[in-house]
C-alpha cells in the first residue's frame, strides 16, 4: 500500500499493465494523469504525445489502436465533448480503446470541481450513432486502479470502447492503495491490426458501410455484443440490503458519501441499505428491480440533477417510489445532508 493520488494511480496502473502509447491534452482535474505519463512513458521509451487538442488526441488513439497496441487517453468533461467524433469512429471500427474521464462541473466551461453531470454523455453513446460503451465508475483510488486494469481487459475481450468515469474527487484525492505488478509489454499484435501486410492479405479498418443493409447488419452485430456485455459485465456493491426497507443508490463519490450516511442511519435504527453501481453501463438493472420488490422506497443520490435516476426508474418501474437527492455544479454532498434526505423519505418508505 502506498499513498496515491487518483490521477497518478490510474496513470501508473495503466503503465504497469502494459500501456504502449498515450495521447492527451491538459485539462483540470485530470492533468496529473497526463503529467505522470509524460515522465514515465518517456523513461520507459514508450510513445507519449501531448496533442494539439482533444480532437487530435482521440484520433491519435484511434490510429495507435488500429495498430493493435494498448492505448488510452484521458480528459475531463469539455475535452470529452471534443472527443465525441473520434469515439464514434473508434466504436464503429470495433477496436479496443480505453478512455478516462475525470468529470468536472458544467455545462460550458463550468468549473474544475468534482461532478457527475456527464452521466448521460458517457453512458448513452460515444458520439453519434447507435452504440454504448462500457462505463466503469470507481469510488476510491483503489477502485480507480482496479477499473483501469479491468478496462483494458474488457476492451480487448470485446473489442469495445471502455470508459473509466471518475468524478474529479476521485482523480484529486490521495489515499492508500496498491498498484498492480509491472507486466512485460505484449510483443504480438492481434491478427486484425494494421502492421503492413507481410505474409497475409491486407487488413482494412473503417467505420463506413454505404449500403443500408450492410450498416444494419453491422449494427446488429454490435447490438449482439452489447447484449452479451449487458448480461456478463454488470458490477455493483451492496451494503446492508438484506433487511433494508429503504434502498439508497449512488455511484462514485456520491455512492461513497451515501455509504457514510447509510451507516449513520443504521446507527439510528433505520433499516437502510446501499447499492453502488460500479458499472454504469451495463447498469445493474436486474438486481435493482429485484431489490425494488423488497424495499418500500428508493433514494437516488447523485452529483447532478438526476441522471442515473432515469436508469433506476427504468429498472424499478412501479415497484417502489423513487426519490432523489442531488447536488450540482461541483458541489459534493455531505453525509449529514444525505442522512437528512434518508430521514425525510424514510417514513414514507415504511408506510
Amino acid at each position, binding site marked *: 500500500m502506498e499513498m496515491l493520488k487518483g490521477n497518478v494511480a490510474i496513470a501508473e496502473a495503466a503503465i504497469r499493465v502494459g500501456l*504502449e*502509447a498515450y*495521447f492527451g491534452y491538459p485539462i483540470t482535474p485530470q492533468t496529473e494523469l497526463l503529467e505522470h505519463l509524460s515522465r514515465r512513458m518517456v523513461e520507459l521509451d514508450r*510513445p507519449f*504525445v501531448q*496533442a*494539439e*487538442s482533444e*480532437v*487530435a*488526441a482521440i*484520433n*491519435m*488513439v*484511434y*490510429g*495507435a*489502436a*488500429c*495498430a493493435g*497496441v494498448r*492505448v488510452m487517453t484521458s480528459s475531463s468533461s469539455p475535452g470529452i465533448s471534443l472527443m465525441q*467524433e*473520434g469515439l464514434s*469512429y473508434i466504436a464503429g*471500427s470495433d477496436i479496443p480503446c480505453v478512455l478516462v474521464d475525470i468529470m468536472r462541473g458544467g455545462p460550458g466551461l463550468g468549473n474544475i470541481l468534482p461532478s457527475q453531470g456527464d452521466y448521460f454523455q458517457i453512458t448513452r453513446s460515444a458520439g453519434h450513432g447507435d452504440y454504448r460503451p462500457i462505463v466503469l465508475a470507481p469510488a476510491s483510488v483503489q477502485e480507480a486502479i482496479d477499473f483501469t486494469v479491468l478496462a483494458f481487459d474488457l476492451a480487448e475481450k470485446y473489442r469495445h470502447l471502455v470508459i473509466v468515469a471518475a468524478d474529479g474527487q476521485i482523480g484529486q484525492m490521495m489515499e492508500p492503495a496498491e498498484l498492480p505488478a509491472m507486466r512485460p509489454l505484449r510483443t504480438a499484435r492481434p491478427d486484425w491490426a*494494421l*502492421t*503492413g*501486410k*507481410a*505474409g497475409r492479405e*491486407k*487488413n*482494412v*479498418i*473503417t*467505420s*463506413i458501410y454505404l449500403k443500408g443493409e450492410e450498416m444494419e447488419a453491422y449494427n446488429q452485430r454490435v447490438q449482439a455484443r452489447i447484449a452479451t456485455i449487458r448480461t456478463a459485465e454488470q458490477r455493483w456493491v451492496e451494503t446492508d440490503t438484506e433487511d433494508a426497507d429503504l434502498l439508497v443508490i449512488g455511484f462514485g463519490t456520491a455512492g461513497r458519501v451515501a455509504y457514510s450516511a447509510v451507516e449513520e442511519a443504521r446507527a439510528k435504527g433505520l433499516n437502510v441499505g446501499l447499492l453502488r453501481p460500479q458499472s454504469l453501463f451495463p447498469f445493474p438493472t436486474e438486481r435493482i428491480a429485484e431489490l425494488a420488490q423488497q424495499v418500500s422506497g428508493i433514494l437516488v443520490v447523485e452529483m447532478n440533477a438526476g441522471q442515473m435516476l432515469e436508469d433506476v426508474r427504468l429498472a424499478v418501474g412501479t415497484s417502489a417510489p423513487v426519490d432523489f437527492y442531488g447536488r450540482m455544479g461541483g458541489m459534493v454532498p455531505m453525509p449529514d445532508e444525505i442522512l437528512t434526505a434518508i430521514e425525510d423519505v424514510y417514513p414514507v418508505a415504511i408506510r
Partner: protein
Amino acid sequence: MMRDAPISDRVVVYERPQALADIHTHYCPGCTHGISHRLVAEAIDELGLNDRAIIVASVGCSVFSYNYFDIDACEAAHGRAPAMATGLKRVSPDRLVFTYQGDGDLASIGTAEIIHAAARGEPVTAVFVNNAIYGMTGGQMAPTSLPGQKTTSSPFGRSTDIAGFPIRMSEVLAELDGSAYIVRRSLHNVKEIRRAKKAIKTAFKVQMAGLGFSMVELLSTCPTNWGMSASDALTWVADTMVPYYPLGDYRVIDAVKDL
C-alpha cells in the same frame, strides 16, 4: 517490342503497380485522383514497401482509397488523418504511414491536425490532392477555391469579401521547422506527372529515413464539379491554378539532398 510480335514474345512495359488493387475505382472520367493513386502505388512498388505501408484514407472523393491500394489501410474522420497517422506511426516507427487527403479535408476541417503533425516533425507523409473544390459533397467552395471561382456554395464566384482568401498550404507548412520536405507539383501534363511521381518517392524516402514531416501537394482536376471536359480541366489547372499555386519546392532540408 514489336507491334506485330506474337503475344508470347511481347515484353511488358506498362502494367498495374502491385500496390494498386485490381478493382475499378469510382472516380469520374478525367479525374486526376486516378493518376495520383497510380503514382503513389508506383512509388511504393519501387521502394519495395508494399508489405510495410499503411494508408490513412480521408473523407472526400478518395474515401475509398483504402480499397484501391493493396496495402494495410484505415479510414480517418474528416480532417483527422494526420492525427491518426501520428498514432499509427508512433507505435510502428519502421512502417511507411501516409495520408491521402483532399483540400477540404487538409486545408479546412483538418488544418490544426496537419499543422501540428508538421510542427512535431512527425515522420509521416501527406499526399495532398488540391482540386480547389469539395468534390465528394457535390462541388461546394473549398478553402483553396480561387477568388471568383463559381461553386455550388459560391454561386456568384468566390467573393473575398464574404469568404476571404485561399490558403496556400505548402507555403504555410514550409514555415515549420518540423517539415523536412514540402513541395507542390501538378498533374496537368506528362512532364508534371513525372515530377510528381519523383516527389512522392522522395517524400516516402524522407519518411523512411526519419527526417521529419513530408507533404506533396498535387494540383488536380475535378471535371465533374468544375463543369468542364477532362481536357479543359487540365488546361484550367495549367492556366488558372498554377499561377495562384506556383509549383516548386517549398522546404527541402539539407539531409534530403543526401538521400
